[in-house]
């Protein structure tokens, strides 16, 4: 009887427990999803998970899109970056690219610490970027540079962003001072590509298939002609025009270079001639002259260490291996400037007249 009373008293609890059990069953059971053959339908709302982008390949191409492993300053190249994103390419928001010099082949060097113009260094590191909002840009800040974005071809982006993989192409021209690198067993240039998607997920790839950089060498003289003024036979004269007594050379180079000089012979008035001796002493013969040159001189323009100029090219002493001009980070590019001093020495029996000749200067990648 007592048991019957207890059951009677506890019956509301059992009812409640039964209700709770029935309520909980659907919570533990899996959601029903239709499963049909082929492309299947989903019952309910489903969201994709974000998948980080990845970089499939980074390849250097020339302006006709043939594979290249060597860059040439002031020539247009394309850096093709094949990028994939399983959330489609529309998910890609930013691509940062550093093209940088590395002294140790195979190490891939160290990529710049930032993707801003503070890492820009005309002879060692160029930075470009692509953003979904603004497209391509060169990140050189206020530094004046001969690196360039685009050229004979233009940078490009995938036309169909619904694909999961396609190629971004950065067209660029290396600057004149981009450090020469031999590739192979010596030094090289690397490409670092950093991709970010809309959620901030990133991928990074450093590619350095021993990419080399060709030598670039350009020379400009400060004047197109010089004059030794009026010189008497047996006398010596320095450059009189320009009035600085200097033949200036401005060399733009990304590698060490050598400077050579020579002269035509004979020099002529049209009627009379005089012949170059190729010696650095006053000629003793008739209708002869000598030329000397040096990269040092006094205030009057006379060479410090006079070297003979001959009819064949010969190295100007001290200029056998001139270091390439370099730049610091964020700084504009410059040239390597050399002042040349020259003397003319005349022999005897030279006819009066205005003589014409040519002095050649040759810059060679040393």
């Amino acid at each position, binding site marked *: 009887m007592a048991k019957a*009373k207890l059951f009677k008293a506890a019956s509301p609890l059992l009812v409640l427990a039964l209700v*709770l059990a029935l309520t909980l069953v659907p*919570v533990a059971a*899996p*959601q029903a999803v239709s*499963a049909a*053959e082929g*492309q*299947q339908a*989903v019952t*309910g709302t489903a969201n*994709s*998970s974000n998948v980080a982008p990845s970089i*499939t390949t980074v390849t250097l*191409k020339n302006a006709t899109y043939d*594979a290249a492993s*060597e860059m*040439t*300053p*002031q*020539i247009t190249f394309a850096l093709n970056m094949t990028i994939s*994103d*399983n959330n*489609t390419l529309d998910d890609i928001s930013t691509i940062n690219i550093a093209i940088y010099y590395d002294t140790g082949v195979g190490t891939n060097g160290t990529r710049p610490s930032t993707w801003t113009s503070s890492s820009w260094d005309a002879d060692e590191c160029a930075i470009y970027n692509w953003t979904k909002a603004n497209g391509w840009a060169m990140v050189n800040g206020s530094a004046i540079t001969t690196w360039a974005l685009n050229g004979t071809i233009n940078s490009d982006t995938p036309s*169909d962003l619904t694909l*999961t993989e396609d190629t971004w192409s950065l067209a660029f021209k290396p600057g004149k001072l981009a450090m020469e690198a031999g590739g*192979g067993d010596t030094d090289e240039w690397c490409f670092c590509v950093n991709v970010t998607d809309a959620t901030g997920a990133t991928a990074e790839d450093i590619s350095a298939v*021993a990419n*080399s950089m*060709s*030598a*670039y*060498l*350009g*020379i*400009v003289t400060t*004047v*197109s*002609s*010089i*004059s*030794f003024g*009026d010189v008497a*036979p047996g006398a010596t004269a320095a450059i009189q*025009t320009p009035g600085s007594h200097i033949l200036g050379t401005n060399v*733009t180079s990304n590698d060490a270079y050598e400077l050579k000089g020579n002269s035509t012979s004979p*020099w002529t008035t049209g009627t009379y001639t005089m012949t170059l001796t190729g010696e650095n002493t006053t000629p003793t013969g008739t209708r002869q002259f000598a030329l000397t040159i040096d990269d040092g001189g006094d205030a009057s323009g006379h060479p410090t260490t006079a070297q003979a100029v001959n009819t064949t090219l010969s190295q100007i002493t001290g200029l056998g291996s001139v270091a390439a001009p370099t730049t610091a980070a964020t700084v504009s590019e410059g040239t390597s400037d050399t002042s040349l001093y020259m003397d*003319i020495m005349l022999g005897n*029996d*030279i006819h*009066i*007249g*205005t*003589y*014409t000749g*040519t*002095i050649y*200067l040759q*810059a*060679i990648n040393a």
Partner: protein
Amino acid sequence: MRLLLSTAKRGAVLAPLLLCLMLSWLLLPLPAQAQGGIAMSGTFYHQNFEIPQGVELSAPSIYVVVFNQGDEEFGVRMSSETPLGVDISFSEDDFSLEPGGQKQVYVTVKVSEDAIPGDYELLICAQRLSAETEGAVGISTSVAQKAKLKVLGESAWVEVKVLSPTGEPVVAQVRLFKLIEGRENEFAMSTSGTLEAKVSPGHYIVRAYVASELLAEESFAIAADESKSITLTVRTIYFGGVGVVPHYYTETGELAFAQVVYTLHNLYQPMNDVEVILKVTEDGVPSEEISVLSLGTLDVGDIGGSYNYIPQGGWQSGDYGFRLELYVGGKLYTTTLEHKLSTGLAPTPINWPLIGGIIAAVAVIGGVVYLVVRRRRA
């Protein structure tokens, strides 16, 4: 420049005349503008030629570029310095450059049968041509590059052909590089899909490109008097951007379906009867094969595709594998790697309102039981 010279006769009679002459010549104008502005770059400088006797070497990657950095047009003359039996020729010997202009000049090195084997240095020079100025000492500038040359008396023979997976010839760009001191030096190039070359003994790498994409390469070594035939097989249709993206129910967080995504690249020519099959494995056991794409013709270019996969029997806990296979004309052409997706029974989501309700209900029941027991005792 003006150069006034007198004879050795130093008579006092001549002095006034000489002075007059000097003064008159001093008044002559002199050109003072900068001269030069010529520059040169290019790959010739890095070349390390190793050429057998009787071989002419030229390639698109062997060139120099001459620039006009100045503000006036000038002419340029190309020249070279070579050892006996070796000739250098240029794609252009003489040309003019506008201010800011540039000219890419391709370089060919020809080693005659009579060239003496040995190590040499080559030099090429771009000379700015200047008109001689009457009465002046003109300044003329030039720029030059050097390269190394080794002439060899021994040689070998290489034949390369590019074929499709079905054995048909493919018109491809073939480039042959010699490896010297870790650097690739281009030795020969063809755009026909075949290449034959007399080469120097050594280590080489040959590459095949279609639509500028590297599709095959092979490294090999060849000894003197050896003949070698290389076949490069290229797949001109390939998958890219393949992945499996899981999608989850918003409400429960459970796996709803796996989206298999891919991009199909066709580089070479339209292909007929193309089909893509999705093969699925469950814990390594093949479970399903589904045709996800079927085309009468696959045109050249890129197409993207995706497939939302749900197992016929619903998702089970385990590892699913997904692989795409491309069939052309009913024959397997290429496949992707297998992409994995691990699933488990998704944890039951916590329904905090329900749990709160249960706790409240238990508290109420407890209270009711307490009150009933207390009344009976009373």
